[in-house]
């Protein structure tokens, strides 16, 4: 199992004059989950569409399950399941009919397909709604059916394009546990997401994509260390103290590269915190310098912070 289940090298794609992918390199080892993390328009979906043979790359090469996505599309499609970003189940059919249709199109025999559909409906907690039209399902139910539909052929490799976007928190947690089960059963998973938290909770590795290029590819821990686990937001009592405060705190932030961000208008100062001690140190230093602090706020790093840090390091 040391072979990579998914491998992309220098994949490029343009739509007209817009260069969507400028050279994506990506490796997903078999049996692991790699999260492709990026904002809207960064090239996540395009990458997934190329790897699932829905879109031909302009340049570069990619293999999935050892098959070239361009030349051996059929073989790739036999090894993968895809849950696309938009619902891709039939609203006018019932949940059961959808799964039986896809089982048939995966060329499972009739009885086998029906068994598989029943199994999946049970597993995804849809048995009670099995004979209702999908049009009447809630968002979470649809998403689960969508995922179930990707699993009818028990594919060794699964692509999930923003599987939890638009879901309520409870449905999201439910879907996460299903994804973990699949991973535990040996499925290789590539998941795209806009949420750092989601990538952090599920992924063995996180590939951060921005402007059609992978800007970081590491374990969640390593990335978080690089970005900082928490953001410390300080609002100074007097904005004019900012230029004095910044150097005091910069020495502390130096270890991880970028120094604190300042906002002169509001007297706000934001910096990464990797350890609770750093918070104490920062406040002590400001206190010793006689700089008053009006407000202290700790928050989790957002995707924006990740990009700010990563693109700054790259530049």
């Amino acid at each position: 199992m040391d072979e990579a289940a998914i491998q992309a090298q220098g994949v490029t794609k343009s739509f007209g004059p817009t260069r969507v992918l400028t050279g994506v390199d990506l490796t997903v080892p078999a049996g692991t989950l790699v999260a492709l993390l990026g904002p809207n328009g960064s090239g996540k979906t395009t990458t997934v569409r190329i790897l699932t043979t829905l879109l031909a790359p302009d340049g570069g090469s990619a293999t999935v399950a050892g098959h070239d996505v361009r030349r051996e599309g059929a073989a790739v499609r036999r090894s993968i399941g895809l849950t696309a970003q938009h619902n891709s189940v039939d609203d006018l059919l019932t949940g059961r009919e959808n799964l039986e249709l896809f089982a048939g199109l995966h060329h499972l025999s009739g009885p086998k397909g029906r068994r598989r559909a029943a199994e999946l409906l049970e597993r995804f907690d849809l048995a009670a709604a099995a004979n209702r039209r999908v049009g009447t399902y809630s968002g979470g139910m649809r998403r689960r059916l969508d995922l179930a539909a990707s699993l009818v052929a028990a594919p060794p490799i699964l692509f999930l394009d923003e599987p939890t976007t638009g879901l309520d928190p409870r449905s999201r947690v439910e879907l996460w546990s299903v994804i973990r089960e699949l991973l535990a059963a040996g499925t290789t998973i590539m998941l795209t997401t806009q949420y750092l938290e989601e990538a952090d909770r599920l992924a063995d590795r996180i590939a951060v994509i921005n402007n059609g290029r992978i800007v970081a590819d590491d374990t969640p821990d390593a990335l978080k260390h690089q970005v900082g686990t928490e953001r410390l937001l300080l609002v100074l009592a007097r904005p004019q103290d900012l230029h004095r405060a910044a150097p005091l705190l910069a020495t502390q932030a130096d270890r991880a590269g970028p120094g604190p961000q300042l906002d002169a208008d509001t007297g706000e100062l934001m910096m990464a915190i990797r350890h609770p001690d750093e918070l104490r140190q920062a406040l002590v230093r400001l206190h010793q310098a006689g700089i008053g602090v009006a407000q202290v706020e700790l928050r989790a790093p957002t995707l924006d912070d990740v990009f700010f840090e990563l693109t700054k390091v790259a530049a």
Partner: protein
Amino acid sequence: MSTPTATAGTRPALRSGVDLGTTVGDLGRLAVRGLRRESRRLDALFVNLALPVGIMVIFVYVFGGAITTGASGLRYIDFVVPAVLLLSAGYGAALTAANVAEDVNGGMIDRLRSLPISSWVVPASHVIASVVRNTVTAGLALIAAVALGFRPHATVGDWALVLALVSGYVLALSAIAVVWGLAVRSTQAAEAFSFIVLFLPYLSDGFVPAETMPSVLRGFAQHQPITPLVETARALLLDQPIGNAGWLAAAWLTAAVVISVPVAAVLFRRRTT
């Protein structure tokens, strides 16, 4: 990898690496899906069940009394039934445009294209579902016609040819509808195709004799494809001489299919990659 890694080309295969028997099965499965969808949409059910009966009633009872059938000397109901058959079946066939557009514009196409099936099966299945559905619709229109007093004089061979003509017309129109559905950008625009198909038969020899029309319209009516189709159906159903209408009808239908199928294939490939 723990999975068998079958490579394409180890057995006789189509482009996608799927063999012919399997592809026929896929067509069937997706055609059944299409028929199921239609059976659950109120508008489609109306078009397929109520419209043919409604149009038949309107033409026979509302317009029928005021229209003379000119040189043909036929009763109006006998004159108009073939046109209503084609109108009803054709209108249903035009809905194929919206069905294809819905698949291509929605998320469903991504799922279907990530399956190990030949992708052309997707639009082709809509055409097959349309032929089944609208041939049944034409049958309903015919039953309504007989109930209203239509008395066909046709042999078994004639009936077989009528069936071939109607299903051929539905096939040709559905294939053109696929092209339209793929060419336009939205499902709403795709639906506009129905209106063209709905009005074309009125400008033919089907509802009123073409000789009663002003010269420009008469020229159009006499040379557009619906006219030989209607004349062929009329001749078959009423045991009249066909003349060259049969060959003309066959030529029109063949041309429509032969031209629109490859265009649809190219458009489908372009829209979905």
